[in-house]
């Protein structure tokens, strides 16, 4: 059986006055029903644009989209606007980061959920309203019948996010795309929302794509993770591997620049130097090379491809360092040796 969502070599470029912005530059991944796929990256890595394109939401006049997106065997990039409207909110639903700007301030919460139902199902207004109330109670809003009658501004941040999840799930979507679903929320509310998404997913066998910059969130939710940098996937593996045996220096950088609750307190953070590149003028060769502590001359000329890691099925990485060297370097990092002091042969070669 083919996967539920299959994205292949997706490219999304935008023509602007300043030049061509390569927001997404050849991204491939697939998600099965009941699976959670995590996309991690910093701002400007293309993580949001790639999923907005899946939803058909980047079809601006200046956008150049190529590659293929297949959902349930159907090509979404070639679908007409009418066909997309049938799919959005029905088969594929999306949760956004900021619930206040994603809910209409002028309409009651219940009415907004009922509208989603009525635009895809042949039901009466009363039935749609009942469905809205049912959804609100499903996502754990107390007194749902009374709350359906309230306006978004009468809800707290966590409740708005729940209302948006209720709206997204009202038509039992097969795929849920969650773009930074908990970034605007407090940790306690975040825990509630993550728990809710997990529960609903196991009940309805929904596929979830979760997009975030928070490594903790994907560690808790995702089955498989893709790390994006400058519009490309630089590493992809199952969740355990990404955290236990990552092979891309950027992934290492991300992991060692966050303080962790479960490591000794005095530990020093190792930031990634520099900053994310401009998507108009990407660095030549490996686009991470200006920030990579292990860069060699050749990396500035050759573009790395996302290739399988030998001996690790399902693990792919786009790095020009030999796999053996990468493993040694990661082992050294784990022992607390900083990138600058790396003893491995990479550095010896550099000295020569």
């Amino acid at each position, binding site marked *: 059986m083919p996967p539920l969502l299959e994205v292949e070599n997706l490219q999304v470029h935008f023509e602007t006055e300043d030049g061509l912005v390569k927001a997404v530059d050849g991204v491939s991944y697939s998600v099965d029903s009941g699976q959670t796929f995590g996309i991690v990256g910093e701002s400007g890595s293309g993580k949001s644009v790639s999923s907005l394109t899946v939803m058909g939401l980047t079809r601006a006049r200046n956008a150049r989209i190529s590659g293929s997106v297949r959902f349930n065997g159907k090509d979404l990039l070639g679908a007409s606007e009418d066909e997309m409207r049938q799919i959005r909110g029905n088969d594929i639903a999306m949760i956004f980061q900021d619930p206040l700007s994603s809910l209409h301030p002028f309409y009651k919460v219940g009415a907004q959920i009922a509208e989603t139902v009525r635009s895809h199902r042949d039901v009466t207004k009363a039935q749609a309203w009942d469905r809205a109330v049912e959804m609100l109670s499903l996502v754990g809003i107390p007194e749902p019948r009374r709350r359906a009658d309230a306006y978004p501004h009468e809800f707290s941040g966590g409740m708005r996010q729940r209302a948006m999840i209720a709206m997204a799930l009202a038509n039992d979507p097969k795929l849920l795309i969650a773009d930074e679903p908990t970034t605007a929320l407090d940790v306690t509310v975040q825990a509630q929302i993550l728990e809710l998404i997990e529960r609903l997913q196991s009940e309805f066998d929904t596929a979830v794509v979760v997009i975030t910059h928070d490594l903790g969130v994907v560690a808790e939710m995702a089955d498989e993770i893709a790390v994006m940098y400058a519009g490309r996937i630089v590493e992809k593996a199952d969740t355990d591997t990404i955290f236990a045996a990552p092979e891309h220096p950027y992934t290492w950088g991300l992991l060692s620049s*966050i303080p962790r609750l479960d490591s000794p307190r005095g530990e020093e953070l190792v930031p990634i130097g520099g900053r994310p590149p401009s998507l108009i003028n990407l660095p030549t060769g490996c686009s991470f090379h200006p920030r990579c502590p292990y860069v060699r001359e050749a990396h500035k000329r050759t573009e790395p491809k996302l290739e399988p890691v030998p001996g690790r099925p399902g693990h792919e990485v786009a790095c020009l360092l030999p796999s053996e060297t990468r493993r040694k370097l990661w082992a050294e990092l784990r022992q607390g040796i900083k990138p600058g002091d790396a003893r491995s042969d990479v550095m010896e070669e550099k000295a020569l």
Partner: protein
Amino acid sequence: MSETLMEVRDLYKHFPIHAGFFRRQVGAVKAVDGVSFDVLRGETLGLVGESGCGKSTTARVLLRLLDATSGSITFEGREISNIKGSELKALRREMQMIFQDPYSSLNPRKTVGTIIADPFVIHGTKQTKAERKAAVQELMDIVGLNPEHYNRYPHEFSGGQRQRIGVARALALKPKVIVADEPVSALDVSIQAQVLNLLRELQRDLGLTLIFIAHDLSVVRHMCDRVAVMYLGRIVELASSEQLYTHPRMPYTGALMSAVPVADPRLAASKKRQVLAGDVPSPTNPPPGCRFHTRCWKAQEICRNEDPPLTAKDGGNLAACHFPLTDAEVLERVPSARSLSG
């Protein structure tokens, strides 16, 4: 290290709510509702809590950016909660602030040099232009900015660099205390670490006292010597970082720690996530008794009626709780406690 720099006693800050034709006061948002703590010289004190718990208001009252409703604040033994005019201006030199949003806290129409030199102009410390320029360039060098970029405008800098400009401005008058209100939450992960490392270095080198406000508990643990946990305008637990993160006593602190997503799939899978039900009650009308009782899994009759005082509990934590967590309960719920204690 253990010398007290600031003493805060019974601090209240209520924002009145007016309504009706005569704009009569109908209530008050009790943003800070009876807070007492000490700030020690040279330490980093963390303030954590959910949004609306009063952590930012507390810091702003401390800096006299807001006037306290009542209570006392002393700085180096001197009462500062009611000083005015030139005295207050002199105090401003001792205390500075770093803001959350590096985009809105810098004037886009001024060059970086002017922004950082502003404190000198306001307080008249560096008289000549050349003196100011030299001082600004030295500051830029300290915070890791290229001093040659003196004449550039804020939009020419990235988020992380802008936050460095904010740090340089705060350092200009050689303050004793710096309040950093969510200094890294607007920054990308890889840039966050750069700014955190900078703050830690500066504190070590310049002997600053830092009051660090953040909602990210991992960042707070990394930065702070002591941490105060706030809930609905009160401090509910205060302890050293080590102690707080391995042996939280207040169930609310335990719930916060348990809620933090851990970037370790195996640890994440094994923990019993403690999800707090419901939302924070309204600060206009906080619940009677212990303020946390409406969401607490250990709450009993006494919690609904009697407000627990902040007292020393097992392990030395100050906590306001009738039924503090036991070590066994902590181990079950807080994965960080487990991985640290063995």
